[in-house]
C-alpha cells in the first residue's frame, strides 16, 4: 500500500448536533483500504494553517467509494471544514494509522464525546461479519445531547449515558457498563483521556483485553516527525525509548501497551 494525499470531492455535509458535523467525501482507493479505527488527515484551504487535522473514519461505503467523518468544530480548521459544501473539494491524506483488531465475538464498544464516531464503522464491521446485534454492545457517553444514535442501532445494542443525565443514564460509560453488567471478550474504546483511564482500569480489573484509541497533536501524520508520541509501557524496539507514535503505531493500542 502506497500512501496518498489528494483532493477529494465532498458528497454531503450536514450539521447533526450543536457544533457537530457529518461530512462525506469520495475517494475509491481510500474507501477500499479504510479499516475501523484508522483516521484521515484533512488540510484546510487556508494557507496560514499548514498542518493536517486528524479525523477518525466514522463510516465507509465501499460500493460508493465514500468515507464519512463526524467531527466537532473545535477551532479554526474544523470551522473551515464545516463551511464546505457538497461539490467542494478538500485535501485528504489517508487512511492513516492502524485500526482496531476485530476478531472479537462479543465486542464491547465504548465511545465518549467526539470519540464516538469511529465506533460506528467498528460496530458495522462486526455486524457485517455476522456477529449478532445482541452480542455487539455499544456504550455511548454524551455531554448532554446525543448524536449518531440511530446509526448505531442498525448494528448493535446501544446503551446511552450523559454527564448531565439529559439523555440515557446519568453518569459515564464505565458507570453504565458496571450497572448493566455488560461484558464481552474485547473492549474497544475511544474518547477523552479520563475516560480511557477509566476503561483501562476497568479492563484490567475485569481481565478483558481492551483496545483504546489515543489523540495527540500531529505534524506529519505518517510517523516521520515524532510529534505525536505517547508513553509506552515498554521500550520501543526501534526508538529505545518509552514512546510510540500515535499516528503510525496507533492511534489504536492495547490498553496495557500505553501509559495514560
Amino acid at each position, binding site marked *: 500500500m502506497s500512501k496518498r*494525499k489528494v483532493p477529494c470531492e465532498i458528497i454531503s455535509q450536514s450539521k447533526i448536533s450543536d457544533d457537530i458535523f457529518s461530512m462525506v467525501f469520495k475517494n475509491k482507493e481510500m474507501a477500499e483500504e479504510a479499516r475501523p479505527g484508522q483516521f484521515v488527515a484533512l488540510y484546510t484551504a487556508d494557507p496560514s494553517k499548514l498542518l493536517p487535522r486528524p479525523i477518525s473514519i466514522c463510516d465507509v461505503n465501499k460500493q460508493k467509494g465514500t468515507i464519512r467523518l463526524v467531527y466537532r468544530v473545535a477551532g479554526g480548521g474544523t470551522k473551515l471544514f464545516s463551511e464546505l459544501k457538497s461539490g467542494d473539494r478538500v485535501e485528504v491524506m489517508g487512511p492513516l494509522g492502524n485500526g482496531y483488531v476485530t476478531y472479537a465475538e462479543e465486542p464491547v464498544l465504548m465511545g465518549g464525546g467526539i470519540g464516538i464516531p469511529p465506533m460506528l464503522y467498528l460496530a458495522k464491521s462486526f455486524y457485517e461479519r455476522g456477529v449478532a446485534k445482541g452480542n455487539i454492545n455499544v456504550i455511548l457517553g454524551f455531554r448532554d445531547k446525543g448524536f449518531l444514535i440511530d446509526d448505531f442501532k442498525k448494528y448493535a445494542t446501544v446503551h446511552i449515558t450523559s454527564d448531565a443525565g439529559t439523555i440515557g443514564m446519568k453518569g459515564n460509560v464505565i458507570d453504565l457498563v458496571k450497572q448493566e453488567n455488560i461484558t464481552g471478550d474485547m473492549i474497544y474504546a475511544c474518547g477523552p483521556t479520563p475516560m480511557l483511564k477509566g476503561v483501562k482500569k476497568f479492563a484490567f480489573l475485569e481481565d478483558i483485553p481492551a483496545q483504546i484509541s489515543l489523540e495527540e*497533536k500531529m505534524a*506529519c501524520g505518517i*510517523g516521520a516527525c*515524532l510529534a505525536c*508520541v505517547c508513553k509506552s509501557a515498554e521500550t520501543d524496539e526501534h*526508538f*529505545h*525509548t518509552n514512546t510510540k507514535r500515535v499516528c503510525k503505531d496507533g492511534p489504536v493500542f492495547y490498553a496495557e501497551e500505553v501509559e495514560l
Partner: protein
Amino acid sequence: MDTSVKICGVEMKNPVTVASGTFGSGLEFSEFVDISKLGAVTTKGVANIPWQGNPTPRIAETYGGMMNAVGLQNPGIEEFIKTDLKFLKDKDTKVIVNVCGHSVKDYVEVVERLSDENVDLLEINVSCPNVKEGGIAFGVDPEALNSITKEIKAKAKQPVIMKLSPNVTDITEMAKAAVDGGADALSLINTLTGMKIDINRRCFAVANKTGGVSGPAIKPIAVRMVYQVCHAVDVPVIGMGGIATAEDAIEFIMAGATAVSIGTANFHDPYVTEKVIKGIEDFMGKNNIETLDEIRKCL
C-alpha cells in the same frame, strides 16, 4: 541543463535536501516520493545514546508556520546505523547525518562511530534545546562554537557542516567562528525560539513552554541570514527556513546558498520535495540557465 551542485566535494544531483527532523530518514516519506530523486537525505538528529525527547504536546501550529519542541528524540547511534543507514544504503542519494549531543564528548562519539559508515556529510546541530554541558551556548556563543567545531573536525572522517541557530544578534560572527574552527560548510537556519499560549486553557501550547518556529513565516529572516553568511564566509551554505516552492528555493540560491533543505513544508505536502526539484528545472529551462552557478549569489 545541469541541476547538480557540489558541497565539499560531494556531488548532489540537485540542490534539494530535507531539513533534519522533518523527514525521519525517508522511510515514511518514501510512500509518497521517490527519495532517490533527492539531492540528499538529511536524517533526523542522532546522539550517542537514545534520547527520550520532550513531553507532549510537542508541536503547535502558528500563523504560516509551526512550533516544535520534539526535544530530539532519537534511538541512539547504534540503532540508527542498524536501521536508518541500512534503509538509506541502496538509495541513489547522498546521506547527510544530523548529529546532536549534550556535550562535546557526545558529539565526538557519534562522529567517530560514523567514520566507516555510508555517510557523505555530517551536519552538527549545535542549537539543541536542553543541552547539559555548554548548554545552548554552543549555538549562540562564538567561542563555544569555534571550539566544538575544532574538536569535531579533529575526529570527523566526513566533511563537517555546522548548523547555525538564528537566535543570535550577529549571524556572521557565528559563521566566522565555525569556519575558523574548520567547518567545511554551514547550514542555516535552525528554528527561531517562540512561544504560544492557549488562552482558554491558560497553558503553554507545547509542554516545553517554548518551541522552535519554522515554516514559511520565517523565510524572510532565513533568507537574510543566508545572504549575510554567504557574503561573510567562503564555504558552501545549505539554506533553509520556510522553503515550500521552487521559487523559495531559488531565492535562497540567489542569496548564496549552494543547496537547500525543505522542512516544515513536508508536513503540509508530502510531495513537496519532488515538486520543488521539478520547479527548479522548469525555472532553469524557462530562463536558459545551464547551471545553478549562474544565479547563485547573483545580487
